[in-house]
Each structure stands twice: as C-alpha cells, then as structure tokens.
C-alpha cells in the first residue's frame, strides 16, 4: 500500500523550503523503491514546525518538523513511513501536540488537515454543510442566526455582523454586493492568508451564504497583491467551485445565483479600510469616504454592500451548520465565539492559535509562544497591528475581549500579537509608527497626511534632545489632533502606538540625552 505523506504548501512552509523537502522525499522514495503518495496540504498553523511533514498511520497522522531536505534520508531510515517516533524531529501524533490540542478550532478546524483544492476533502470534513442548510432557509432566518451568534467583524472594528447584514437585507435595490476584505495589511497577522491558502472553499462558502442572506448575487474578494500564492489558490478554487455548482447560476439546483470574482489591490495599506477599499474596487485612488452613507446602504457603485473581513465570512459556515448557540457558547461578555490569534515577531513558537475570547496575552505568549525566539526577556508587545498600542508587562494579564482592551486604550484588532525582546528601542518604534502613517496615508484629511510627517520630525527632535520638554508637549498635542480630527482609523489610531511607547517606556526617549551628558 502506498504511504500517504503530507507536506504543506502555504507561504510560510514554502518560505522555509517545503518544496525542496517534497522533491527530496519523492527522489529518496524512488531510489529506495518505496511507494508514496504526496499530498500538499495546508498548514496547521504551527509556523515554528514548518515545514511539517506528516504521515498517515492507523493511529492517526504522525508529525515531523521542522524538516529540511537534508533531514529526509535520516527520517526515512528512522521509519518515517511507519510513523515511528525515534527521530529527533518526531513530534508524535499531530493531533496530540499540546500547542494544537489545547486550541478551540471552529473556523480553523479543517485547516492543515486537507488538500486545500480538493472538493472531496472539503466535503468529507463537513464542508458545504452550512451552504446546504442556507439554501433551504429564508434570508431573514440566516441573518437572525448570525445576529444570535454574536459574531462581530474580525477585521478590527468589531461591528456586529448581523446588524450590518440586516441593513443590507432591508435596503431596497436591484443589485447588492458581498465584498470580502482580504487586504490583510497589519503586521503580525496572517490568519486571512491561512484561510485563503489552506481552506479556500471555506471563504467561498461563507460568501455564498452571505449572498443568500442579503440577496446579493455578486461577490468580490479584494485581495492584496502581496499574497500571490493566495491569489493562485483562490482562482483555482473558484473555478472548481463553479464547475461543481457551488457558485454561479442556480447553485445546487436551488435557483439561487452567486458569482464571485477576485480583485487585486496594489500595495496600499489604507485599502483595508472599508470605504477606501470600495473606492479602489471602483477603479479609483483608495481614498477614505465620508460616512454616512454607510456602505451597507451605499457601497460598491452606490449599491447596498456587505463589506466583511475574511475571518468574519469564514466564521459563517460553522454558525449556520452548527447553529448560533453553538458559536455564542464560546467567548466572554459581548465578545462571542473564537478569535484567531497570530503569534508573531520575536516568538519561539509562533503561529496561529484559535481560542475563545477571554484568554490572556501572558497565557498566549508564555504557554503557547514559549517566550522570545532570542531567549532574551520579553519587553513589549504590539497587539492589533501597526495602529495598535504597545503593551508593557503590566497589561499582559488583560483578557482578550474587545471591551476590556478598549477600556485600557488598546485594541484587539485583527488578532495580531507581535512580541519584542529587551533589545527593542521603543522611541524608534514610535517613530516608525508615524513614518508608516506618512507613507500609507491616503492624503484626504490634513491631521493624518501632515500630522504624520510632523510626527516623525518631532520624535526626531525629542531623540536628539532638542528642546525636549516643549517637543514632548507638542507631540502630545499632535497626537490629540490626529486622534480627534482624522477621518478614519489610520490617522485616528496612529497615536496609539506612539503614546503607549511614551507612556510605558519613557526611558527609551532619554537614551540619547544621557549619552550626550556622559
């Protein structure tokens, strides 16, 4: 019997040599006269073990990682094909690896297990159960299920998804749209990418359900150009889903229509903001729109449009298949369900952790992350992307919950957790936040466009110890102006990382001064 071997082909596994491991394995197996079937699966999200090679055995899948092509001969010698565990790279049974076993995977349940493009695999692992149910339900029932689940937008703003859908359902129009925001631009986040590369039918299913729920027959995935592999995989998945009758006219012989198209962004962070995204989709500069009108009323080309993040739409199939109550059972307070947390930066065991809301940063960074990659003490952690605050140790015991974080001037955002060790210079990080805003501002409003340029200059003067006190006062006023006067979160939240660095790590802004006195 041919042994079934799994080697992931997501961006991270490939970036660490998964293709050469696969080639070497096929070559070595042929040399030894061994029969193997190679399956290029998605990633389990254990980035530190990538490339993670798995072999199917009667006891389940056995894992080995991180594997380089040079390890392949010794792995075969040590009984890889029998799933033996003597090799130093052996991780035992994949499902029993504590890092994975302790998670609560609802959205990511199938990710890394299946061949991303296999429709048979998808169906065999509960795929399309939500869509099948949705085809038989009324739009209002679907919207009510999403409302009752408590699902809130996972892109960062955390707006209740069901309310947004209800607005679009109630808006009278001949044409409505579902737009998936796949412009995952926050540093430290890769959950959207994992969904698209490792389980693309999940997103397709979620969007088709959204279309049925609000009466939209056309969907667009606005994908960032930095994700070429996700683009290729999604294109192939859409073509196969169409051919199999899950997309297009008359889905599953139900008479319902839903068409789906991918549109590529062009390297603009601001296009992750929903109104800029719509402008870009319409073929314009990605500049922020004034709200109101909300996109749910006047969105793509003025029509009612649902704009949801990849993870929001990817949560929908579970909610419809298993029921609102099953999803709402997870979480704390008004943050229901699970959150895809991404451990990144200076982390020993980085990757994707899906857990119910309510876990703490410390639990994640210590028990999952295992501390820093460098082995030096952890000093600061930026949560929620480049617009999120830098949190010092005193805030690491906050439970991850939208309201708790907001009360402490922090944001959960898209769930990115970027860890820094004690070699970090927080004044430099504060400067970078302003610099990033200067580079990426859409330019429509003055506080963001000009404020960020002046912000870089003021921080430079502070770091040079040039009129320190008056420049610190100026920086604080500038931050207030940006926060209160900007049109969108880009200018409005850039002060979060800057002020948190100043508040919690003031000594870093003094170093130069001490150097000069010495």
């Amino acid at each position, binding site marked *: 019997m041919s042994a079934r071997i799994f080697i992931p082909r997501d*961006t*991270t596994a*490939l*970036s*660490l040599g998964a293709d050469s491991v696969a080639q070497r394995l096929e070559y070595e197996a042929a040399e030894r006269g061994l029969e193997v079937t190679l399956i290029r699966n998605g990633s389990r999200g254990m*980035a*530190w073990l*990538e490339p993670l090679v798995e072999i199917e055995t009667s006891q389940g899948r056995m894992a080995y990682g991180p594997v380089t092509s040079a390890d392949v001969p010794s792995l075969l010698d040590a009984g890889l094909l029998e799933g033996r565990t003597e090799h130093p790279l052996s991780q035992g049974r994949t499902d029993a690896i504590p890092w994975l076993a302790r998670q609560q995977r609802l959205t990511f349940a199938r990710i890394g297990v299946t061949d991303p493009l296999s429709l048979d695999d998808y169906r065999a692992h509960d795929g399309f159960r939500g869509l099948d149910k949705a085809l038989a339900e009324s739009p209002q029932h679907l919207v009510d299920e999403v409302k009752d689940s408590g699902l809130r937008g996972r892109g960062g703003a955390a707006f209740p998804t069901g309310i947004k859908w209800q607005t679009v359902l109630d808006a009278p129009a001949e044409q409505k749209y579902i737009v998936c925001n796949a412009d*995952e*631009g926050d*540093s*430290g*986040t*890769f959950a*959207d*990418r994992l969904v698209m590369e490792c389980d693309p039918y999940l997103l397709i299913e979620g969007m088709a359900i959204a279309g049925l729920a609000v009466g939209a027959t056309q969907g667009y995935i606005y994908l960032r*150009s*930095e*994700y*070429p*592999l996700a683009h290729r995989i999604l294109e192939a998945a859409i073509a196969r889903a169409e051919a199999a009758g899950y997309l297009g006219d008359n889905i599953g012989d139900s008479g319902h229509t839903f068409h789906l198209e991918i*549109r*590529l*962004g*062009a*390297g*603009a*962070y601001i296009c992750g903001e929903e109104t800029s995204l719509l402008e*870009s*989709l*319409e*073929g*314009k*500069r*990605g500049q922020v729109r004034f709200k109101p009108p909300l996109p749910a009323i006047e969105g*793509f*080309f003025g029509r009612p449009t649902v704009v949801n993040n990849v993870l929001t739409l990817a949560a929908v199939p579970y909610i419809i298949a298993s029921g609102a109550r099953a999803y709402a059972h997870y979480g704390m307070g008004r943050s229901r369900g699970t959150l895809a947390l*991404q*451990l*990144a*930066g*200076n*982390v020993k065991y*980085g*990757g994707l952790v899906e857990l119910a809301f309510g876990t703490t940063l410390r639990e994640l960074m210590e028990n999952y992350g295992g501390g820093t*990659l*460098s082995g030096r003490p952890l000093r600061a952690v*930026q949560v929620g992307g*480049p617009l999120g605050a830098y949190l010092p140790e005193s805030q690491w015991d906050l439970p991850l919950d939208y309201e708790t974080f907001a009360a402490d001037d922090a944001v959960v955002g898209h769930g*990115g957790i*970027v*860890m*820094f*060790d004690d070699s*970090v210079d927080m004044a430099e*990080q504060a400067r*970078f936040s302003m610099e*990033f805003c200067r*580079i*990426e501002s859409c330019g429509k409003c003055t506080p963001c466009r000009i404020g960020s340029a002046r912000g870089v200059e003021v921080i430079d003067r502070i770091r040079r110890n040039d009129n320190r006190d008056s420049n610190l006062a100026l920086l604080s006023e500038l931050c207030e102006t940006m926060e209160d006067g900007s049109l969108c979160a880009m200018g409005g939240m850039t002060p979060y990382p800057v002020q948190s660095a100043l508040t919690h790590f003031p000594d870093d802004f003094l170093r130069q001064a001490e150097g000069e006195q010495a």
Partner: protein
Amino acid sequence: MSAYPEWTPSLIQAETDALKHKPGALLPILHAIQDRFGFIPQEAVPIIAAGLSQTRAEVHGVISFYHHFRAAPPGNHVLQVCRAEACQAVGSRALEAHAKARLGVDYHQTTADGEITLEAVYCLGNCACGPSLRLDDSVHGRVTPESFDALVDELRTQPLEIM
C-alpha cells in the same frame, strides 16, 4: 536582457479592451499591463483614459497612488524586503541595511547590472518566521545576511549556467 516583452501602443490597447467592460476596470487593466510589460509606460495613460472615458489625470492619479504600480521598467528580478513591525522584532532593520549595502542601491532603485530592483514592503504575512523578503513571487523566511547573499549570488549566476 529584460525579462519582459517590449510594449507597443496596440498591445496596451488590447489589454485595455480586454478588461474595460468590468465594473471598476482600471486596477485590473493596470495590473494586466504591469504583469505583462513590467511597468506602466507613460504613453499608456492616454490609451487607457480613452478606453475608460476618463481623464488622463484620473488615470495618472491612480497609478501614482498605489505603491505596486511603477512607471519605469524594473530589473530582471524584484526583491522586496519587509519593513513591518513583526520583522523588525527579529532583525529586519539590520537586514535592510545589509541588502542596500550588498546591492549598492537604495529602495526603488535597480542594481547597475540591471538585475535586481530593491523595494520595501509592509508585511508579507510571514510574521511568525521573519525577517522575510519576497523575490519575484516567492517569499523567503528567517532570512539572515548570509542567506540573503546566497540568494543574490544564485540569481546572478543563473544566466551564466543557461549560456
């Protein structure tokens, strides 16, 4: 030798005509042109504008707004170094300094031999395994100055092997 074919007005016209029926066709058209010719020639602007019944200023405004679009031909390979926070936390500042010194260029410049164009990128989504860079369409993780040099050496020796 450039990795891309020469553009001509009629080829630009063909790319425009093939996509102009789409709602919001401008970005897809610009992507198609840049994918095929490596950049968007200045002379393409009036052709695209006429095809979409837009002004030249509108088309130019879109090209210049987005970091991805370029108005001049790139080198044979485009190398993007990630400058975002997750990569900064594991040494991308040192890596970008090394890349600039090794290639002898700054961002948005091409090496003297026309081989490599260096660009900055703000996140490749490989944030648990930084520092990361993207060389054409492949992402590389945990890049060190040594592995960077090996990658660049490999690029530059490949054409000789073919000959």
